[in-house]
């Protein structure tokens, strides 16, 4: 695969498997989003055939994001190529996806509104960030996006796959102290599984002192090695594994900002 095609492929996985799944968190947090999806009992999915896919299962006032596509969702947006998926999400070109479930067009319209609503949380204004609650939520979403992004990059970026092939199997847990978000990623022979919450028997744990530092780390406002030395970020366990996976996380920035 040529470099340009690979870049588009990885980016599409990042958008569909790391960015869009955060809708689950946003619907749980944002009143307007909850109102838009009130009473929904359906599955909406976006996917590139043979490539990245994500589906949102709405039930009992909740939304659950799942990676990958299924054969009979309520609504399906089938996007022909990774390039088209990226254009559609970046709003940089006209893309007309093949839609299954047209009879639910009302829901689809609201769903597209939801994705627009994400912008508020993913690219927050300085004013919004002054709100402590919003700040914490934004940082949580960003952390989850980074962790899910590690899977996207780790499984599809050729350079990173070379690194990952040398990393021992097992879970890496990332937690924000004292009671901030926790997520983990499990590496198994080059494949990643991502989940919220702590890991059972982690190979390595990264503890970030507080939510402000997590925000700064995720926005590259601090130097990682410096923070380690100052004990504001702590690594316990297989430090070599964390070092390699940090490269995977950093690589996300090459694709999306």
């Amino acid at each position, binding site marked *: 695969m040529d470099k340009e095609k690979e870049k588009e492929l990885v980016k599409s996985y990042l958008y569909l498997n790391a960015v869009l799944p955060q809708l689950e968190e946003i619907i749980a947090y944002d009143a307007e989003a909850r109102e838009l999806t009130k009473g929904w009992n359906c599955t909406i999915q976006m996917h590139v055939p043979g490539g990245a896919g994500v589906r949102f299962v709405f039930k009992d006032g909740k939304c659950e994001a799942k990676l990958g596509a299924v054969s009979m969702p309520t609504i399906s947006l089938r996007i022909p190529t990774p390039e088209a998926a990226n254009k559609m999400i970046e709003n940089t070109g006209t893309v007309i996806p093949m839609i299954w479930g047209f009879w639910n067009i009302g829901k689809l319209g609201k769903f597209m509104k939801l994705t627009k609503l994400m912008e508020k949380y993913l690219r927050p204004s300085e004013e919004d960030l002054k709100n402590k609650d919003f700040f914490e939520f934004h940082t949580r979403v960003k952390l989850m996006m980074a962790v899910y992004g590690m899977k996207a990059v780790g499984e599809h970026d050729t350079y990173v796959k070379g690194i990952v092939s040398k990393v021992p199997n097992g879970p890496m847990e990332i937690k924000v102290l004292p009671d901030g978000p926790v997520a983990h990623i499990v590496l198994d022979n080059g494949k990643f599984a991502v989940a919220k919450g702590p890991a059972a028997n982690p190979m390595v744990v990264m503890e970030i002192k507080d939510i402000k530092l997590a925000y700064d780390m995720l926005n590259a406002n601090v*130097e990682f*090695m*410096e923070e380690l*030395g100052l*004990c504001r970020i*702590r690594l316990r*366990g*297989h430090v*070599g594994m964390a070092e390699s996976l940090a490269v995977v996380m950093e690589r996300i920035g090459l694709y999306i900002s």
Partner: protein
Amino acid sequence: METYKFDKSYEWFERACKVIPGGVIGHKHPAFTVPGSYPYFASRGEGSHYWDPDGNEFIDWMCGFGPMVLGYNNPVVDAAAQEQAKLGDGMSHPGPISIEYAEMMVKLTKGMDWCVYGKNGADITTWCMRLAREYTGRKKILIVRGAYHGAQAWSTPSYGGIIDEDRTHVHFFEWNNLDSFMELINTYKGQVAGVMMTPYHHCIYADQQMPAPGWWEAIGKVCKQEELILISDDVRAGFRLDMAGSHAYFGYEPDLVCYSKAIANTYPISAGLGTSKLKETAEHVLFTGTFFSSMVPMAASIATVKELKRLDGVNYMMKIGKALCDGLVSVGKSNGFEIIMSGPYDIPFMRFAREKNFMLKQLFSGEAAIRGVIFHPHHNWFTSCAHTEEDVKKSLEVADIAFKKVKDKYGSD
């Protein structure tokens, strides 16, 4: 037992971060130990001990990651170095001492006929790789997966600034696995210039592996058959297994030998030795650096070799290492832990048998460091001729406390 504080270390670290990327460069960065439980800087050293900026005193089982074999500030080595310094250093020609130095190294090292000198192990390993390519006219170099041959682009275990092409002609096989080695030999028939190997496998984050019976014999046989240059990277183990080279200890016959670390008791020098067949080629594979011909480290190295011989240093370091290793296994057992010590006694690697992620080892090492004993949580350790039985005794007392702390947090086996 009172535990140490590292306030000044942290103050220095914050200051360092303003002008040095990450505060400390490379493998001595605090992140590779247990930040918060180790000093970040060393102010002075003497014998097997050093002191940090807070005035805390440590028994050092890392020996500066290997170079310290006779003790910090060894009076004999320092006197020889100062003597040379008075005469001059870094002048526009190499000193006569460079000949004396090469003569000594050639005489010392089994099977070698000539010697060059550099500053770090990586200078020598990289040059030896080029030399093998020049001599054979072939491109491929085979190395063991997980082995460390320096932080050059072709060999660094890290990722920054590396492009695929840096390693296009470097291929990996598994230690003690002849099938994996032969697979590369057969795949790249007629293309392999050389094989670079450490005398035994001293990877990090894992037990060290000694050569299996017949391993070196088989490697040597294939190298001869295929006319490959066998490069012994003795940078880490050199002068700790056999003064004639670790190849003499294990009984193999390399074409090139790489030394650094222990050969000058912390003075910066490395050496490459080769057999006569490579001497002419060595003349036209440029090997140079502004400081390569520095005379002070050569004087230090000559004195180091003399002292190591006088003290029967290798046997002493093995003996003190055995006391430490056996003691740790025993103290670990009395606290309910099975402890695995791997590698030679004087270059040991410790691991809790039940763990793979080093959390127990990190807690153990951190608890030891705050009580004045430096064990590394992830890297092998080193012993020196300056370590004493008293050092071992104190270290085991501290280890006992550290094991108890581990038991309190994680439980025994």
